[in-house]
């Protein structure tokens, strides 16, 4: 029953241990095959021509000269794709993959070529003649909201947007409860402040890559680097006007995604090129293309007002959030508005979010999309208020912390949650009382994320020699093959080494949602456990037939079928391997499977603590110490959980200190490469310490909660709070790059 707890009290034997990673050898020896590692006989190289203009009407595209060049086998433009895609969101995806009437940002794809080599393809791109009508552009969210701002689209706003606003405002979202005016009237101190964050890229190591083969019989195969190959299949099929069953997609190993590979960029183009050329087409993005044309996250401008009583009780909270999500609707401002005050038990709270388009690449999800920016603003304001009132920032958060029974700022009443536990762990941790030196400061912040489940299929097959193969349909970006093998082994009562988990292609399993929303360990884990239980029931049935007793007189314990009690007769246990060995004689191969829409994912909270040192001469910031406290529900493989905590913290540190999309007056991206867009590297960082808390999620048999996203929510604010204390000035604009910090220190 959906409304009852699924979590069972049990003593784990394998779950909670740290076995070797199944993909480790492949990855360190180079045997793992990533997106660009696949080739096919007769393969062509596909390249894309991109707009150099931030906003331009495409008057004409002449591909004649490119098409007649020796070695060129196909050229595609938007004219090659279906003229009409009914679903508005999918139509936007197509328009982002290949521009229609207008180029909407610097880097927007306008044509593509397939040729016998990269050199020929590059030469052919230069022969494509595009006539542009240049249009005024806007890349800043606040400027884009002005009524006289250059408009990207006409009549795209939804019904929530009041009349008279800029055409760039796509939607308005409002959440909250209570009476904030009454709440502010009770405050001893009200703080109002504006905050800004810049767009950051997910920064995955592996650029987008794919290999498309479109047969003359209308059937196609696609190999690609993605967080969700079923999503790729469904999206490409819709865009290309083909049936889903005629396109088989296989996911490569993935060199990072973090949300940025939850949509398509190259894949429909590669398929169309292959269809026209009649040969396989491989496409691999360069790093500059990744920056210019794939989804960074939204940038934001946020105004916060918080009222606080002298004792630290928050009397009211309000935030107005403005996110630009690039050239199409759909910035995650709704998620930011829902999550901004979620860690706190507030009687009066309200958030208003505005979804805004600008001449930038279409944003894509980035770990807990929308939440880190909102948390930065709210957690900075809480920190500043606590400091002004002479209060301990952890005590203030404990005083206001959401608990079981709290009505969340976004609506529902929380069940058992772990925020208070993370705060108490943080307060008791030696990090909190460690001394600080000159120019050093300590910051804390809390964060929240929803998590979800979704469509999931698992097939678990018992081989004749008693080993087990688990097939699942979600690319492994965070250790899911290990986690699934562990949960299957736990449930079956066999060693971890006896189980191998593979990622099946779209032809092998039913629909699987994308590896996102921190859903995989929760949802695929739940399905794996159910598949293992189905296999156990079948194995008990086989043992019953062999023993000539009733099926319900057999139980599965410690990896073997056993008589349920003395009345069932004296039969020696039959192990999984013994039952598998005679499967042919007892009814045929044995398998278990589960197909489910896994609902009931539990929300997750974290508290982060960081020490920083500021160089007042250069504006450089050094991270001295960092500790993550997060609720994992149940940590299946603690090393992977720690890795998720550490990775989120590090990406958040980069967002807070260095990373930003920088646009020139000409509307062009100025820093489309890792030399000028600096992500933290190992030498920049201390070891990120982690503390795993386990408050079971009642929606999962083992209590698992997703952990992949919450860890990026607190670090922006935690770092900003620490730097603000170290520098003696409040930092409200991220990233706190050296020039920005020096300017703030100079303005004191």
């Amino acid at each position: 029953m959906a409304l009852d707890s699924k979590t069972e009290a049990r003593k784990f034997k394998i779950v909670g241990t740290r076995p070797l990673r199944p993909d480790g050898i492949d990855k360190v020896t180079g045997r793992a095959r990533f997106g660009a590692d696949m080739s096919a006989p007769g393969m062509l190289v596909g390249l894309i021509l991109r707009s150099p203009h931030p906003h331009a009407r495409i008057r004409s595209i002449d591909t004649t000269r490119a098409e007649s060049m020796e070695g060129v086998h196909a050229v595609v433009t938007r004219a090659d794709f279906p003229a009409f895609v009914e679903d508005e969101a999918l139509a936007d995806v197509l328009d982002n993959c290949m521009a229609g009437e207008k180029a909407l940002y610097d880097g927007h794809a306008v044509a593509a070529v397939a040729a016998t080599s990269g050199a020929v393809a590059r030469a052919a791109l230069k022969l494509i003649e595009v006539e542009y009508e240049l249009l005024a552009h806007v890349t800043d969210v606040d400027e884009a909201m002005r009524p006289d701002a250059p408009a990207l689209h006409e009549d795209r706003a939804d019904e929530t947007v009041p009349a008279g606003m800029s055409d760039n405002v796509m939607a308005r979202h409002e959440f909250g409860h209570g009476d904030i005016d009454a709440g502010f009237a009770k405050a001893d101190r009200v703080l109002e402040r504006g905050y800004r964050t810049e767009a950051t890229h997910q920064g995955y190591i592996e650029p987008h890559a794919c290999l498309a083969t479109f047969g003359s019989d209308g059937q196609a195969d696609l190999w690609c680097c993605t967080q969700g190959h079923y999503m790729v299949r469904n999206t490409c099929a819709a865009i290309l006007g083909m049936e889903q069953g005629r396109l088989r997609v296989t996911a490569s190993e993935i060199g990072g995604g973090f949300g940025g590979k939850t949509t398509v960029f190259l894949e429909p183009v590669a398929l169309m090129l292959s269809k026209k050329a009649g040969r396989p087409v491989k496409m691999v993005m360069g790093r500059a293309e990744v920056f210019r044309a794939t989804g960074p996250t939204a940038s934001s401008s946020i105004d916060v007002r918080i009222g606080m009583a002298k004792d630290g009780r928050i009397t009211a909270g309000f935030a107005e959030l403005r996110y630009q999500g690039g050239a199409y609707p759909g910035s995650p401002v709704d998620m930011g508005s829902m999550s901004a005050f979620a860690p706190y038990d507030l009687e009066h709270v309200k958030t208003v979010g505005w979804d805004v388009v600008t001449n930038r690449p279409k944003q894509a999800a980035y770990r807990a999309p929308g939440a880190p920016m909102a948390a930065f603003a709210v957690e900075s304001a809480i920190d500043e208020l606590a400091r002004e009132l002479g209060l301990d920032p952890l005590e203030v958060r404990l005083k206001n912390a959401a608990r079981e029974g709290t009505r969340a700022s976004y609506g529902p009443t929380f069940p058992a949650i772990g925020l208070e536990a993370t705060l108490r762990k943080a307060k008791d941790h030696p990090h909190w009382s460690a001394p600080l030196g000159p120019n050093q400061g300590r910051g804390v912040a809390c964060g929240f994320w929803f998590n979800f489940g979704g469509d999931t299929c698992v097939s678990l097959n018992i081989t004749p020699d008693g080993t087990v193969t688990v097939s699942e349909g979600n690319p492994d970006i965070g250790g899911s093959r290990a986690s699934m093998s562990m949960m299957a082994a736990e449930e079956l009562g066999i060693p971890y080494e006896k189980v191998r988990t593979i990622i099946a292609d779209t032809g092998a399993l039913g629909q699987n949602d994308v590896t996102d929303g921190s859903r995989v360990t929760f949802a695929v884990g739940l399905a794996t456990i159910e598949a293992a239980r189905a296999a156990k029931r079948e194995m008990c049935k086989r043992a019953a037939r062999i023993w000539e007793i009733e099926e319900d007189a057999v139980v599965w314990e410690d990896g073997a079928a056993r008589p349920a009690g003395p009345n069932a007769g004296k039969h020696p246990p039959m192990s999984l391997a013994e039952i598998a060995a005679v499967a042919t004689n007892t009814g045929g191969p044995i398998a278990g499977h589960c197909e489910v829409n896994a609902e009931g994912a539990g929300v997750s909270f974290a508290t982060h603590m960081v020490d920083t040192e500021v160089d007042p001469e250069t504006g450089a910031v050094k991270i001295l110490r960092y500790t993550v406290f997060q609720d994992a529900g149940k940590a299946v493989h603690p090393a992977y959980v720690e890795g998720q905590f550490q990775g989120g913290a590090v990406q958040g540190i980069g967002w807070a200190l260095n990373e930003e999309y920088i646009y020139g007056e000409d509307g062009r991206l100025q820093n489309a490469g890792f030399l000028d867009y600096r992500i933290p590297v190992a030498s920049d960082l201390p070891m990120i310490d982690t503390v795993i808390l386990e408050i079971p999620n009642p929606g999962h048999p083992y209590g698992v909660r997703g952990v992949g996203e919450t860890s990026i929510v607190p670090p922006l604010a935690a770092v900003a709070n620490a730097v603000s204390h170290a520098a003696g000035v409040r930092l409200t604009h991220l990233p706190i790059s050296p020039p920005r910090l020096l300017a703030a220190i100079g303005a004191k």
Partner: protein
Amino acid sequence: MVRVRLWGSLAAAIGGQTEIEVEAGTLRELLDTLARDYPALQPQLERGVSVAIDGVIYNDDWFTPIRPDSEVVLLARLKGG
């Protein structure tokens, strides 16, 4: 009858009501009834919603049971990364 709590933007669409009562025993009945009785909610329902039932968030499972005393809250459709 089930009491359903709406978020601010949805409440504004139906004249400021933040809670409404509907007859529904499952998620499907809830969404169908809302679409039928409150046409102003239709655009958002078509774009997608998530539903929190007794604090647990559900997306699409039509047959998720709802008890008469359940706390039901409509939410913007969840996204993830």
